[in-house]
């Protein structure tokens, strides 16, 4: 186990190094941030001074070396736009994205698993068919368009919920969270539902498929033959076994929710990391873009690792040390 974790972490370092190199090199080729940052009426000398101040006058390999040296000490450079460390800018926005992602996953799981269970246990009933048809719709609806429709219906027409922005926050352990007070939760609800919809369909379909597969297996027949109550068979025996693949998918999807928050945050003007990176791409704020990608990639790899470890705890048949990867 320990060796496994160690090997995975060393792979992480490699992936991060490659990502940084690719993104750094790629971004170097697009546009000149100085043109965007300085006053349009600035003359050549002022531009050169600005470039020198940002370290943009040096050749690319020197810029990259400076970046790597800084990165190894936890400094990913200063944002061109905010003139503060890029990592600091990102970490300030991170709680907003994370709370949105967690709320979305919570919605998807609490609604998705019961609906999937129902559809799996009664595959023929009209309600199940409606659930499954709804899940195909959920797959097909493009997230950003659903966001617009939610705004039209619930914010513009009905006026129940605020359309954009983030509500008042409460400080918890030094983090600013908005979902802990009613007013803030109102603001978070529409974006979270928007983000949850696709995952909800996925969880419904996965749960249903698992239930249908597992309920034919011998251990369920045996549990029924023992005369256990229906509730116990489903709630304990069946649920325990379908949880294994579900946990994997839910874990992996958490990462993808964080990535997809880019879209939802842009629509709802939610001040998270995703909106930050879109703005930074347009403003050619390279340090922030590179730092964002490194942070997200790192989170991703971490989530994957945790899911793998959880998997081995949930399913004793899986032995990580044996898995060559």
């Amino acid at each position, binding site marked *: 186990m320990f060796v496994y974790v160690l090997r995975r972490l060393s792979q992480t370092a490699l992936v991060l190094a490659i990502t940084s190199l690719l*993104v750094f090199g790629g971004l170097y080729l697009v546009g000149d941030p100085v043109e965007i940052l300085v006053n349009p009426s600035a003359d050549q000398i002022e531009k050169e001074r600005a470039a020198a101040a940002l370290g943009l006058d040096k050749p690319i390999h020197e810029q990259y070396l400076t970046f790597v040296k800084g990165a190894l000490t936890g400094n990913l450079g200063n944002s061109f736009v905010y003139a503060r460390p890029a990592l600091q800018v990102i970490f300030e926005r991170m709680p907003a994205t994370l709370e949105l992602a967690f709320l979305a996953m919570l919605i998807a799981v609490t609604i998705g698993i019961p609906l999937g269970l129902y559809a799996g246990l009664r595959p023929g009933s009209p309600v199940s068919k409606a659930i499954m048809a709804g899940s195909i*719709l959920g797959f097909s609806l493009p997230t950003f368009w659903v966001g617009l429709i939610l705004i039209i219906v619930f914010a513009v027409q009905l006026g129940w919920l605020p359309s954009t922005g983030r509500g008042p926050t409460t400080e918890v352990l030094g983090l600013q969270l908005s979902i802990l007070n009613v007013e803030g939760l109102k603001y978070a609800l529409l974006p979270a539902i928007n983000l949850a919809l696709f995952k909800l369909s996925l969880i419904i379909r996965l749960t249903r498929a698992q239930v249908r597969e597992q309920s034919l297996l011998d251990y369920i027949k045996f549990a029924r033959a023992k005369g256990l109550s229906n509730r116990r068979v489903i709630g304990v025996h069946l649920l325990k076994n379908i949880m294994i693949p579900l946990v994997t998918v839910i874990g992996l999807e958490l990462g993808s929710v964080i990535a997809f928050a880019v879209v939802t945050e842009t629509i709802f003007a939610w001040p998270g990391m995703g909106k930050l990176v*879109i703005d930074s791409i347009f403003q050619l704020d390279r340090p922030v873009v590179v730092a964002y*990608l490194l942070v997200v990639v790192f989170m991703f790899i971490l989530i994957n690792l945790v899911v793998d470890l959880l998997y081995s705890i949930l399913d004793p048949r899986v032995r990580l040390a044996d898995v060559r990867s």
Partner: protein
Amino acid sequence: MSVLPTPPSPADGVQTPWGRFASQFAESRLAMAGLVLLVVIVLTALLAPWIAPQDPYDLTKLDLLDARQPPGAQSMDGLTYWLGTDGQGRDMLSAIIYGMRVSLEVGVLSGVIALSIGSVLGVLAAYLGGRFEQVVMRIVDIQLGFPAILVALILLAVLGKGIDKIIIALVTVQWAYYARTARSAALVERHKEYIEAARSLGLSGARIVLRHLLPNALPPLIVVGTVQVAHAIALEATLSFLGLGLPPTEPSLGLLISNGYEYLMSGKYWISVYPGIALLLTILAINLVGDQLRDVLNPRLAR
């Protein structure tokens, strides 16, 4: 009097593989509805110049006085804007028909290229094995670990705008799915007798891979392909909506929706909503067909 021999009815089991495939596919009414819808959409997109009431790219035809007209409004020269007009006075129906063309083009083209690259690499990995297989599958694993939107976002931030750029981004995102599917299908096929037979005939490796292995690994690839084309269309729309995809000169459905976003709050819903419905119907039709294809082509569910 001689009795005419009754022609064998399809129910007698005398069916060509295609006939069996078609009748199995037709079992689901929902899938047939999806197929009909898809055919209509594709035909509309292909025949856009003849069907659309207006050429949305011809700026001389546009009248700014007609901008943001609600659905059903009449233009000066008697043209009815069934779905209203956008901020430039462009007929939304025409813009949607042409936008569908762009969306489908991007989706199908990127799908075909990704399918070609991915399936060849995947089948080769299965056929050659060894170091080649390890390297290819390692890259596939790493790439599939990251969500498509993130990879596409990085690429487009670097590449910039344009139809070719977005196709590059979509191909990069998608090839790994095809490679993985093709490899697992080819791994199963590789040990079958017809491959042995082809080998003992002394056929070249390239011929075995291209003419024997690849065609037999095709059914699962087709299933993945339909799902991926729907994904590609949705992803392109999303990226265009974020302002990272296509240039505004040839708006796809995603860009049309994005253009209408600013008018949404003032109740001019049609500029965003109708292209969205067109996008939804396109993706839905492909997904319905894909769902049924998966059931019909899946050997485990063979009846």
